[in-house]
C-alpha cells in the first residue's frame, strides 16, 4: 500500500485545521472590531496592539472557567454535544481546493486534502450533521429556552439545507461534476462574450443561485438575521444557554469555523476560488472568503431578526420555488446546447 499520499493528506489536513482555528480566533477579533466601527465605537483595543491578543485572552478566560452541568441535564449528551458540533465544523474544509499541486521537497503535493467525486454533496452532508450538536445540546440542557432554540434550529436547518443544495444544482448541471476541483477547473476558463473577456465564474452564469446560496448559507450558519436558534433577546442564547467555559467555547468555535468554511466553499463555487487576475493562488481565495465574512458581519450590524414563521415562509415560499426555477432554466439551457459555457 502506498502510504505517502495518505501521510501528505493528513499533514495538510493538520495544517489546515490549525489555520482554520487561527482564522477563527481572528475572525472573532475582526467581527468585534468591524461591528464596533459600524456602531461608532472602538471595540477591543487594549490587549496587545489593536487588541490583537484579545482572542488569546478570550480563549484563556473561557478555558479557565468552571464547566457547569445543570442538575436536570441529560449528562452524557450534554457533555458530548458541543464536541460533536466542533468536530464536524472544519470537516467541510477538507474538500476545498487551495490551489494546484506544488512541489515540496521533491514531492508532488496537492493543495487540498481530498478530491472526492461527491465533494459538494459531502459539504452538504457535513453541514446537515452539524445540526446534531445544536439539537442535542439544546435538548440535553433541560432548559425550555434551549429546547425552543434547538427546535427552531432543526426546522431552520432542514428548510435551508434544501435551498442550499438546490441552489448548487445549476452548477452541477453546467459542470457535469460534483467535485470541487472539477468545478474550479471549469471556472478557470475564460468566458468570451463578444469582445469582452470575462472569467468563467458561476457568479456570472448563475447569479440567482448565488443569491440563494448566500441567503441559505447565512441561515445555515445561524447568523443574523437568521440567528433565531440563539436569539439572545428572545431565547437568551437558545441552545447554549446552559453552557459555560470551554464547552461554550466549542459552540463558539464551531459557529465561526462554519462561517469560514461556508465562505471558502462559496468563494470556490461561485467566485472562481483561487482564480483571479495576475497570478492564481490561495490569496485570491482568502480575499474572496474575506468578502463573504465581511458581508456576514455587515448583515449582523445592520438587520433586525426575522420571526420564526417568516423565516420558514421565506424558505419554503420564496427561496425554494426560485431555486427550482433556476434549476429548470439551467437545465433547459443546457439541453438546447447553448449552455456549453
Amino acid at each position, binding site marked *: *500500500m502506498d502510504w505517502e499520499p495518505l501521510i501528505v493528506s493528513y499533514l495538510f489536513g493538520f495544517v489546515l485545521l490549525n489555520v482554520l482555528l487561527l482564522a477563527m480566533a481572528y475572525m472573532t477579533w475582526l467581527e468585534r472590531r468591524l461591528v464596533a466601527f459600524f456602531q461608532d465605537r472602538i471595540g477591543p483595543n487594549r490587549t496587545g496592539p489593536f487588541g490583537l491578543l484579545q482572542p488569546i485572552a478570550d480563549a484563556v478566560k473561557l478555558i479557565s472557567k468552571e464547566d457547569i452541568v445543570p442538575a436536570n441535564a*441529560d449528562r*452524557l*449528551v450534554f457533555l458530548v454535544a458541543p464536541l460533536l458540533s466542533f468536530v464536524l465544523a472544519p470537516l467541510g474544509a477538507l474538500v476545498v481546493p487551495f490551489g494546484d499541486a506544488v512541489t515540496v521537497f521533491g514531492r508532488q503535493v496537492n493543495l487540498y486534502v481530498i478530491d*472526492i*467525486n*461527491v465533494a459538494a*454533496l*459531502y459539504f*452538504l*452532508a457535513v453541514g*446537515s*450533521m452539524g*445540526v*446534531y450538536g445544536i*439539537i*442535542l445540546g439544546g*435538548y440535553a440542557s433541560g432548559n425550555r429556552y434551549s*429546547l425552543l432554540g*434547538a*427546535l427552531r434550529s*432543526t*426546522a431552520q*436547518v*432542514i428548510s435551508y*439545507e434544501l435551498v442550499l*443544495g438546490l441552489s448548487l444544482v445549476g452548477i452541477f448541471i453546467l459542470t457535469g461534476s*460534483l467535485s470541487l476541483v472539477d468545478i474550479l477547473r471549469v471556472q478557470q476558463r475564460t468566458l468570451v462574450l463578444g469582445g469582452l473577456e470575462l472569467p468563467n465564474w458561476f457568479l456570472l452564469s448563475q447569479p440567482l443561485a448565488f443569491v440563494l446560496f448566500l441567503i441559505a448559507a447565512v441561515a445555515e450558519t445561524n447568523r443574523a438575521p437568521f440567528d433565531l436558534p440563539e436569539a439572545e433577546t428572545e431565547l437568551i442564547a437558545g441552545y447554549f444557554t446552559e453552557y459555560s467555559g470551554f464547552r461554550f467555547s466549542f459552540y463558539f468555535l464551531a459557529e465561526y469555523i462554519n462561517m469560514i468554511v461556508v465562505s471558502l466553499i462559496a468563494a470556490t463555487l461561485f467566485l472562481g476560488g483561487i482564480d483571479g487576475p495576475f497570478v492564481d493562488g490561495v490569496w485570491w481565495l482568502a480575499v474572496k472568503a474575506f468578502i463573504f465574512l465581511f458581508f456576514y458581519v455587515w448583515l449582523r450590524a445592520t438587520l433586525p431578526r426575522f420571526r420564526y414563521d417568516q423565516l420558514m415562509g421565506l424558505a419554503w415560499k420564496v427561496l425554494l420555488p426560485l431555486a427550482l426555477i433556476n434549476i429548470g432554466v439551467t437545465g433547459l439551457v443546457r439541453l438546447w446546447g447553448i449552455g456549453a459555457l
Partner: protein
Amino acid sequence: MAIEVLIFYLLAGVAIAAAAGVVLARNPVHSAVSLVLSFVNVAAIYVMLRAEFLAVAQVIVYTGAIIVLVLFVLMLVQQQDLPEFHGGRPLRRAVGFLLGLVLLAEVAAAILTRSLRGAPGSWPPEAVAAVGGNIQAIGRELYSVYMLPIQATALLLLAATVGALFLARPELIEERLAVARRLFTISLAHPRGVDPLQPVAELPGPHDNERKPAGGDRVLVMARNAEEFTEQPAWGEIRR
C-alpha cells in the same frame, strides 16, 4: 489490504453496537442518537465499497433529515407520554422477534444468493469507469431504466406530503387559536370577555387633520389641537 479489513471491522463493529444501542437504550433520544451513529458508520462502509454517492445520500437524507425530524418529534412530546419501550404483551414481543428474524433471513438470502452465484450485476467496474464514475452510472440507471418507478415514488411522496398536511389540518390550528383568543388569554377583563354588548367607546368619525407620510406606506395623522378628538378618525379598515 489488511488495514482496510481492520477498518471495515471497526466500522462494522461500531455500527452493530450502535444498532444494539437503538434497541436497548431507555431514553428515546439516546436511541435516536445511536441510530445516527449506526448510519454514519454504514455510510463509511459505503465509502470503502466505492459508493461515495450512496454514502453521502445516506448521510444527507437519513441522518441529516429523517433522524433530525424524529428527534424533533421526540422533543415535542413529553417523555412520560411516550409508550413503554421494553414493555408490551408477550405475544406482541414474540411477533416482533419473529418479524425481525424474517427480515434478517430475507436480507441474508438476497446477499447470499448474489454472492454465491458470483454475479457482479449489470454495472461492473469497467462499465462504471466508462461512463465517468459511479454518480454518472447511478444517474443513467435511475433516469433511463427506472424512470417509471422514480416518477411513481415522487407521486407517492407528494401524496404523502399532501396527506400529512391534511392530517395536521392548519384550519384546526385556526380554530384552536380562535378558542384561545376567546378563552385562554388572561386578559380576563377585556370588554369582549365581560361585556360584549356594550362598546366602551364609540369609534371616531372622519376627520380633516393633516396627514403626514411616515414610511412603510403608513401615514401619521398630525393632530393640531385636542378639540378634534371626536372628529378623529385614524382608523377603521383594519379590524382584528
